[in-house]
């Protein structure tokens, strides 16, 4: 072992133990995702006919393809599982890998823990090495657990292990990406944002490449495309995993090279002197300032998403026409083409709504992060009442997603209304506005958690996760209405066809209750504990 990585082993033990605990939920969620498809599929779609209908339903809603990628074969359990778990599971593993790697490397540098250790008998590459080994190890374990659990519950062994392997490979590549961004960002938060943004863009591009019949190279140019091309349950192609391993090695070599060239605790980008006087003079301005970077980045992302989905909507009729199953479905008079387009738009806006809730939840979680960083303490020692401080952050957490959704909705409405697909600008924009209250309900879950019991940070994401699973996957799973109704998006009326607007009232009442409880909790609890 060279001296640069001396001390990796003693570092590895605490890192692995500490981060293993944090990584466990990712293993659980991805395993559940895969196992539930294998167990659920034969129950929900027992007959050939059911399976055909599923194919039609998914083919008729290209918005699903944007998220889950192409459905190669929905007539078998393994094919269905691959469609449902590969893209989404890979995305989750990627996130887990990024957070684990950044936590073990950059975040420790920022907090000063790494400095304590760096003065010990520890080579300068040891910390990155320990983080990389841990992340690679944990994602490998995850792949094995997913594969074995899926096989044991009834999946075909080869397909199941291949599915697990794609998750591992995605985790590895994301570990490589995060190892590089950890060297570039000036602090942990910036580093993980870079890495997550990279993953998000690749994910979006893959969905687009498949949904829009783009040329083949657009799939092969995308590392996530390699994963989809393994086609577990259909063709079981193993070799695309090789380039994934190769890319991981390349990224890690680059990361170690970059690490060797930067100073401890600094990024590649050196900070410049700033203003001697401040313009931030209220809690509202402070909330804006603290969240400025991520909010700008999300703003750009939603403008792009608005363009992408808007453009996508214009070609919806062609896409529907190409699908023979959908054509038969239309010919049989089971639905009109306009109705399918309308359903598509509602799904797209629901999806955008769930995505806009993410920055909302992040703003609320930032309250907790500031508290733990002991920066809330001096603010609270001034004449700022807790409710005012919380209200400023809550206002931002509510207005930012609303603004994003309206911006993206306007873009979709503009583009869609110009194409000849029978979609009006006003209807579409109204639909976007009507989705906003559902986004607020999801954000309000985070308001409650941060106010009452912030120690369980993951619970703040419960709203986003539930809304995602129930709204986007629920209908294809033929879940009962009582279950689907847990997601606030289920209550959003189709503004073009539904008369009643009562659903929005109900979910707004829930939002109000969650917010009030959150405020009471934040007023009454100890800060910084």
């Amino acid at each position, binding site marked *: 072992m060279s001296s640069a990585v001396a001390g990796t082993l003693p570092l590895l033990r605490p890192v692995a133990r500490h981060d293993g605990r944090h990584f466990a939920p990712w293993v659980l969620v991805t395993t559940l995702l895969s196992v539930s498809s294998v167990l659920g599929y034969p129950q929900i779609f027992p007959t050939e006919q059911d399976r055909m209908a599923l194919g039609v339903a998914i083919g008729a809603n290209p918005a699903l393809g944007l998220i889950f990628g192409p459905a190669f074969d929905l007539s078998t359990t393994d094919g269905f599982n691959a469609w449902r778990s590969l893209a989404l599971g890979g995305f989750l593993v990627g996130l887990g890998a990024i957070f684990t790697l950044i936590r073990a490397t950059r975040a420790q540098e920022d907090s000063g823990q790494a400095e304590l250790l760096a003065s010990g008998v520890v080579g300068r590459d040891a910390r990155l090495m320990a983080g990389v080994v841990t992340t690679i190890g944990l994602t490998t374990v995850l792949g094995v657990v997913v594969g074995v659990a899926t096989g044991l519950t009834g999946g075909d062994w080869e397909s199941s292990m291949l599915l697990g392997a794609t998750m591992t490979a995605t985790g590895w590549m994301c570990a490589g990406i995060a190892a590089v961004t950890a060297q570039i960002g000036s*602090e942990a938060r910036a580093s993980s944002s870079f890495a997550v943004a990279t993953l998000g863009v690749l994910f979006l591009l893959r969905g687009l490449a498949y949904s829009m019949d783009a040329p083949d190279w657009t799939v092969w140019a995308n590392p996530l495309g390699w994963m989809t091309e393994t086609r577990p349950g259909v063709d079981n192609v193993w070799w695309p995993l090789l380039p994934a391993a190769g890319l991981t090695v390349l990224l890690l070599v680059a990361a170690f090279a970059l690490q060797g060239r930067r100073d401890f605790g600094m990024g590649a980008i050196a900070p410049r002197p700033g203003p001697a006087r*401040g313009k931030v003079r209220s809690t509202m301005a402070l909330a804006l300032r603290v969240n400025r970077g991520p909010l700008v980045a999300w703003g750009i992302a939603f403008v792009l998403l608005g363009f992408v989905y808007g453009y996508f909507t214009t070609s919806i009729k062609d896409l529907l026409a190409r699908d023979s199953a959908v054509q038969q479905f239309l010919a049989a008079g089971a639905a009109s083409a306009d109705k399918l387009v309308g359903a598509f738009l509602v799904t797209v806006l629901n999806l955008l709504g769930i995505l806009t809730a993410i920055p909302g939840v992040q703003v609320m979680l930032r309250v907790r992060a500031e508290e733990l960083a002991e920066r809330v303490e001096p603010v609270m020692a001034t004449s700022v009442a807790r409710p005012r401080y919380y209200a400023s952050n809550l206002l931002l957490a509510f207005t930012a997603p609303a603004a994003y959704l309206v911006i993206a909705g306007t873009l979709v409405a503009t583009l869609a209304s110009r194409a000849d697909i029978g979609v009006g600008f006003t209807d579409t924009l109204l639909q976007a506005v009507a989705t906003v209250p559902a986004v607020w309900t999801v954000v309000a879950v985070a308001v409650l958690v941060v106010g009452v019991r912030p120690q369980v940070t993951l619970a703040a994401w419960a709203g986003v996760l539930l809304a995602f699973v129930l709204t986007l996957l629920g209908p294809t799973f033929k879940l009962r209405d009582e279950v689907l109704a847990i997601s606030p998006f289920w209550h959003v009326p189709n503004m073009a066809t539904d008369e009643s607007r009562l659903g929005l009232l109900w979910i707004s009442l829930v939002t109000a209750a969650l917010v009030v409880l959150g405020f009471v909790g934040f007023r009454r609890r100890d*800060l910084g504990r």
Partner: protein
Amino acid sequence: MGTGDAVISVEQLTKSYGRFRALNGLDLQVAPGEVHAFLGPNGAGKSTTIRVLLGLLRADSGSVRVLGGDPWRDVVELHRRIAYVPGEVSLWPGMTGGEAIDLLGSLRGGLDERRRAELVERFELDPTKRGRQYSKGNRQKVAIVAALSSDAELLILDEPTSGLDPLMENVFQEVVVEAKGRGSSVLLSSHILAEVESLADRLSIIRDGRVAETGTLADLRGRTRTTIHAEVVTLPAHASLDALEDVRIDGNRLWATVESSRISAALETLLPLGVTALTVEPPSLESLFLRLYEGEEGER
């Protein structure tokens, strides 16, 4: 001093974190216009007490009054009149020190521009650096400037100078004396004995979550032992040295300790022996604090 006019009045305060009892029946009185030093070993409960005084933590039991109000309930009114310097100053990484000072000042209800400029100058603070670029000492300067730029009736300072160099430590002491001159009261938690000696009117020592000693420095000195070193002509018989303790004799030299209140009695026993040289030394600050921190023998 009655409880009514005290700036800080704490009685029988308790606070637990889970099963750990951080404060265990703490009493603390700070009179208007005084600099009250708050000392104790690490983990004794100083920061917890200060956080309760600021309304960041809620007391489990006991009564807490700050400037005549309830720190948990009357947060806004009280905090307009209080300035605080935390022990661990954590600044917003991307915000400059100048921006942080203006933000905290504005949130308290405005700061004195002239004094802000003067303090930045005297503490030699570069206000254009980003939060993450400051050293520990410089982060503390930011917090000190932010707190002292406004006219607060009560300053709560939690180890404010633990990272300052001796020059800046001097500036800090001057600034606190000036604040006192303007009529502010100060609660100063500190481990720097010279700072406590030169600033504090009274002090309280906290140990294991309760106040073990309180009084002026002279009071506390009076309760501890003075060292006596004498050269005598005739060697004494041990029986005649009742007033002295820890007696050690080497040739015609004698060392002993004596309770500070019994010095004259001790001298009376020594004088008949024919004293040729005599040193009476009050306890050094260090030995005084070591003794107070450790507690009385047998108490632990």
